[in-house]
């Protein structure tokens, strides 16, 4: 078991290293750099000398190998550097934006799972009944609708009927100003949750159908347990495991939709940061944010895998 855990951790560290290397080179392969992107705004003053000067200030004139070695050494020591754009340290930028993203991400997951689990369950119990068909139809629609469109239509509904005001200027946290924060998050969290629901719901439904046919469920029924106990204790527990397995993918999907939702609703989170850093060629911020997202998903996968290994001995042997 220990050997298995160590092997998995080493693999995870290697993947994070690959992601970091990828993002380091990706942002440098893109045409233009921060010097041209920022000076391009006031083209009059952007002479070749200015650009060269700016590059030298930012350390972008060094050979790529040296830059890479520096980045690697700094990152290993958890020094992420300073943002080109704001001059603040990258840690400060992340510290400011991460809480917004975690807030929204958790809200999306709460909405997603509190819809997906009962709906998947009901759909499996009433297999091939009208209820099952309509719920599955809804899930297929949710999977097909672009998240930005669902969010736009929801804002349209809110605007049309003056349901509530959305405070996009104050940028409140839930713990600071719950009333304004929740109206601000309401549309993105439901749009994101709705989009994230479909896969989980469909997976849970098919797993439930599989589990409900198993012998141990028949045994549980035969010994006279109530149907509700059979379903929650015996069936749902086992059907939820595969849902947990794809948790890493689920989280990556949610972060992906957060990139768009944060952009639409002016939420200064990680997703918004990665966009602005990418377009402004703010290398330190871009590299670090991609790295942090990757650590997040890889860590989730790692925890899930290890938990799985603990529960199911067959896994750690393969």
């Amino acid at each position: 078991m220990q050997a298995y855990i160590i092997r998995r951790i080493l693999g995870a560290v290697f993947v994070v290293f690959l992601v970091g290397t990828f993002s380091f080179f990706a942002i440098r392969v893109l045409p233009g750099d921060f010097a041209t992107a920022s000076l391009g705004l006031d083209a009059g003053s952007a002479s070749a000398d200015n650009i060269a000067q700016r590059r030298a200030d930012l350390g972008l004139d060094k050979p790529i190998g040296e830059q890479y070695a520096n980045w690697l050494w700094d990152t290993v020591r958890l020094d992420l550097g300073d943002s080109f754009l704001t001059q603040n340290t990258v840690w400060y930028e992340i510290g400011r934006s991460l809480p917004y993203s975690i807030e929204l991400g958790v809200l999306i997951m709460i909405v997603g799972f509190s819809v997906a689990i009962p709906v998947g369950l009901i759909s499996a119990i009433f297999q091939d009944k009208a209820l099952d068909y309509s719920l599955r139809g809804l899930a297929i629609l949710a999977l097909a609708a672009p998240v930005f469109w669902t969010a736009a239509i929801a804002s349209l509904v809110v605007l049309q009927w003056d349901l509530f005001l959305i405070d996009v200027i104050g940028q409140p946290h839930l713990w600071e100003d719950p009333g304004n924060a929740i109206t601000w998050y309401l549309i993105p969290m439901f749009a994101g949750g709705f989009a994230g629901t479909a896969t989980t719901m469909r997976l849970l439904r098919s797993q439930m159908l599989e589990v409900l046919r198993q012998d141990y469920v028949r045994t549980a029924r035969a010994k006279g347990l109530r149907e509700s106990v059979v379903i929650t204790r015996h069936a749902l527990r086992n059907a939820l495991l595969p849902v947990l397995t794809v948790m890493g993918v689920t989280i990556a999907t949610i972060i992906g939709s957060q990139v768009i939702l944060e952009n639409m609703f002016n939420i200064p989170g990680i997703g918004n940061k990665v966009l602005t850093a990418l377009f402004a060629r703010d290398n330190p911020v871009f590299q670090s944010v991609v790295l942090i997202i990757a650590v997040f998903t890889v860590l989730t996968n790692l925890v899930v895998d290890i938990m799985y290994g603990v529960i199911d001995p067959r896994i750690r042997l393969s």
Partner: protein
Amino acid sequence: MSQIVDPTVVPLRDPTPLERAGSAMVSLGRFMKGKPLGGSGLVVVVVFIAVALLATVIQRHDPDEIFETPNPDYKANPSTLELARNPDIGSPVLVSQFEEPGGGHWFGTDKFGRDIWSQVIHGSRLSLIVGLGASVIAVVGGLIIGMISAYYAGIVDLLIQRIVDMLQAIPFLVLVLVFTQITERSVLNVVLWLGVAGLAITTRLIRSAVLQVRESEFVLAARVVGASDLRIMIRHVLPNCVAVLIIAFSIGIGAYILAEASISFLGAGPQGIPSWGQMVQAGRGSLDLHPWQTVFAGGAIMMIVLGFNLLGDALRDVLDPRLRGA
């Protein structure tokens, strides 16, 4: 050498093209009947393909044509005061922006007075090219890499798997945004990069299929009689992976269409061609008063993705029941 002919055995022969077409129709009919949802998905997809091919026939207007209406307040040579009150007074015609849907413009007009129906019709082309093209690239690339990875186990396999892990640890949208910025954002480049970004998923899917087939006895038998690796791959493994290839191809299409719509929505999509994602964004500026551009363009994205997803689900159920719900 004389052959013994058994009169009860009908000699095997290849079916004629007509018979082939007939049996294809029969299986299509069986598919539509057995999988009504998949059948309706197929209908949606066929309709969109027809719309894309016949866009110039059913467009009603040129998508770039700017419509104008006579200016009711028009006055030749207005005074400075009148111009200050109404800047448009000097022009005989006005751009007929934000017309409501109706007989003249089925879906209304946008901010620049262009016909939304024609724009939506033309947008189908980009979505179809992107969805089908990226999926072809992802499947072909995934097939090559997945086969190499599965067949030459060991360090090569390990490295490819870790790179796949790496690609999956980055949100798909971010990956696509980075890739598409590397080159000029032409349609072809965007299709190519979307396919590359999709390689992780197809590689993983195809690798596990090849691993399974590789263990089967007929591969062992082929190896025993001395077939080369390449021959085993092409003659024995590949034909047994066709079902997985079709599944990998069909379930990705919707995701690529959504990804293209998303980057276009963010203003980083392919340039010089009408795009639904970009239309949804354009309509957001006046969403509260004139929502039609956003509503119709987004609705079109949902319909086409729905069609491909339904079709893909049904194909997967038919071809590989074990993957149901995956």
